[in-house]
């Protein structure tokens, strides 16, 4: 992509360079000042013509800036940073192509409720609408994939807009906010507005965080009378930082817990009340628990179609309690008897504090424990078959003791990671759930490592997804941050291949990729140590060595191509119709 030189910029915008008194701040200076007020530690970005004044201010008044090698890499890194740190991820890109390269990341953050503030450059207000060089209507483009967006039209509004953007992104149900900055707003002189004009002023945005007492009362009564209650915990638990409350709630009322994909880590992977993940590739026990429960307590999950399967068959016997901070999620997919609009932490605290007597769930827990023993995840390993992805993931879990921060893309490797990696801690799991973005995991790992410099960060990716954003290996080379990239390399688009095998008569249309780069040499080109692992015996030794290293490493695991993720709920089926539950 072509980026603007200074000379070209001046021609396009036809604005004379204003020489200003050194004491007078311009929009860009105020921008940096305001970011500092919000304690922004790191910005992920990429400069270009329209954001030159911003980068100039950044040069004079530095905040740590990570120069990704593609805007998509920058925004996924910001997403990884936000998820692991619990803070707002900040991104800057230039106008036009810089801004449009962010679109996938913005949509991803919207689907998975990740708090981001995304600043895009824009051509000067004097030429907006004239198809100026590198002009794109990013406000129009991102309107359906942002929680809110702004275009700065008066330099005096700059601090207020930034304050509001951070407020909107990080409160209620988090999400991405785009702030579009025309170039002349960054160069324009800043006239200090009245104090009240800088404050957040959002009469139409008042998220409810405190639960309604009557609804809590009803939920507590339902818990007391339920024989087979079940908690479905989603990412809302993590955003509310309510993992401790979730465990306390489940333990107090002796209710088993299942997670959505994004909710993993909300409860300890080895917790006795935990049934594993539910949904399309969840555990048989969790899915059957949903189908047979008489009370389903959804805490911060959105009943996504990959979780529910066919809605006509979903939880047929259950009364539904749904705790969500976003009222629009309640009743959207599943009719809800007891809606509780609240922050997950406050709602769980209220339920824990409620003196409702426990229901008798002993028999229910007993039957679920038997089921857990009878239906574990399974795979068939042998020396002849070769290295299996599940074996790699079991080793990764073993060598990191379940303490690592793990990131993935979307697909088979993601599902296997969700199945086999048992998280000891919340906020260590970074994956692209709703949008299902290939190329997400690796840059997200870089952001995650920056958020937690001392953590072991492992990025599990497929060979195809990795090639979508591998240019960010430059960042590992530059920053020497010890991200461990593990490629589960089956020389295929694994999940596409699996669906073609199962639902399209084994017609593997465009899903097998036999020509690949030599990933070890590729790593070496970026001055990173590369490993190639082809057998389980090698994996045991080399994976250990690689994971113990203090340096960034890339591990190319050559795994069996013809291996599918099971168990599975086929599309259009109910959760009770799982296939591949037991070994053949």
């Amino acid at each position, binding site marked *: 992509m072509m980026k603007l030189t200074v000379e070209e910029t001046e021609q396009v915008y036809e604005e004379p360079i204003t020489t200003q008194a050194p004491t007078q701040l311009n929009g860009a200076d105020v921008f940096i000042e305001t970011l500092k007020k919000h304690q922004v530690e790191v910005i992920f970005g990429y400069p270009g013509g329209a954001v030159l004044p911003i980068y100039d201010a950044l040069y004079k008044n530095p905040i740590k800036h990570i120069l990704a090698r593609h805007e998509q890499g920058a925004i996924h890194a910001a997403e990884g940073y936000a998820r692991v740190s619990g803070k707002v991820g900040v991104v800057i890109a230039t106008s036009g192509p810089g801004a449009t390269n962010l679109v996938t990341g913005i949509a991803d953050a919207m689907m998975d409720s990740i708090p981001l503030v995304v600043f895009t450059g824009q051509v000067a207000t004097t030429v907006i609408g004239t198809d100026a060089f590198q002009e794109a209507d990013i406000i129009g483009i991102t*309107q*359906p994939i942002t929680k*809110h967006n702004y275009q700065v039209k008066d330099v005096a509004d700059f601090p207020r807009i930034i304050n509001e953007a951070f407020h909107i992104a990080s409160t209620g149900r988090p999400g991405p906010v785009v702030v579009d900055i025309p170039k002349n707003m960054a160069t324009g002189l800043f006239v200090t507005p009245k104090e009240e004009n800088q404050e957040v002023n*959002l*009469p*139409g945005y008042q998220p409810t965080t405190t639960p309604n007492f009557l609804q809590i009362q009803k939920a507590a009564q339902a818990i007391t009378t339920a024989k087979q209650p079940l908690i479905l915990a989603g990412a809302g638990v993590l955003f509310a930082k309510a993992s401790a409350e979730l465990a306390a709630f489940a333990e107090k009322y002796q209710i088993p817990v299942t997670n959505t994909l994004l909710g993993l880590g909300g409860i300890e992977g080895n917790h006795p009340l935990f049934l594993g993940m539910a949904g399309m590739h969840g555990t048989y026990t969790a899915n059957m628990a949903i189908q047979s429960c008489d009370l389903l307590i959804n805490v911060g999950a959105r009943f996504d179609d990959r979780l529910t399967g066919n809605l006509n068959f979903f939880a047929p016997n259950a009364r539904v309690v749904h705790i969500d901070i976003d*009222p*629009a999620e309640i009743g959207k997919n599943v*009719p809800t008897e007891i809606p509780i609009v609240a922050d997950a932490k406050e709602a769980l605290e209220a339920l824990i504090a409620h003196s409702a007597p426990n229901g008798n769930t002993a028999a229910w827990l007993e039957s679920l424990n038997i089921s857990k023993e009878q239906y574990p995840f399974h795979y068939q390993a042998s020396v002849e078959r070769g290295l299996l992805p599940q074996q790699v993931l079991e080793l990764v879990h073993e060598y990191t003791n379940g303490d690592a921060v793990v990131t993935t893309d979307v697909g088979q490797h993601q599902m296997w990671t969700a199945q086999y990696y048992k998280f000891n801690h919340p906020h260590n799991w970074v994956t692209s759930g709703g949008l299902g973005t290939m190329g997400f995991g690796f840059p997200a790992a870089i952001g995650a490592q920056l958020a937690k410099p001392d953590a072991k960060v492992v990025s599990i990716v497929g060979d195809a997804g990795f090639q979508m954003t591998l240019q960010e290996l430059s960042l590992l080379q530059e920053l020497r941050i010890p991200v461990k990239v593990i490629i589960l390399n089956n020389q295929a688009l694994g999940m596409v291949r699996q669906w073609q095998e199962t639902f399209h008569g084994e017609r593997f249309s465009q899903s097998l990729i036999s020509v690949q780069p030599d990933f070890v040499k590729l790593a070496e080109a970026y001055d990173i140590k590369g490993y190639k692992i082809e057998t389980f015996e090698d994996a045991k030794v080399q994976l250990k060595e690689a994971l113990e290293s203090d340096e960034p490493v890339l591990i190319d695991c050559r795994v069996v191509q013809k291996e599918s993720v099971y168990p599975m709920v086929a599309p259009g089926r109910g959760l009770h119709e799982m296939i591949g539950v037991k070994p053949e």
Partner: protein
Amino acid sequence: MKRIITVTVINQSGVLNRVTGLLMKRQFNIESITVGHTENPQISKMTFVVNVEDEQKLEQLLKQLQKQVDVLKVNDITEKQIVVRELALVKVASPPAVRAEVNSIIEPFRASIIDTGKNVVTFQVTGSPEKIDAFIDLLKPYGIKELTRTGVTAFVRETQKVNGPQLSILK
């Protein structure tokens, strides 16, 4: 089912786009929409008529609208006592031979003549959408040359019908 929904929004550029974009994204079909600012120039009110399949879809629509940062208030006023008004401009073929006849037809509708040509007359009529439908039907035989309707705008009436025990006591 057809619903009349009013949305009070902060009057700034892009807000109409945001609301209609939201309806498009969630697959709601807008039948008509009117927008204008209220007694407070910083606040606008939109009135739109949408076709929704069922109660659940309607609830989703109201909640999604309410969720927008620029939206202050959302009301489904379909079942309230309301004043609904629409304006239509109708250009009708009206040669001198039938002009008196045409003019007599429009009288009960309290429509007014706003432009006259040699062979055509343009009427302006306001009222409920049903009244306007009837007006148009009556003029059709004479030949409608051009027609434009504003879509409805609506108000909730001051006095609402009371459904409840009080009413039976009054009786």
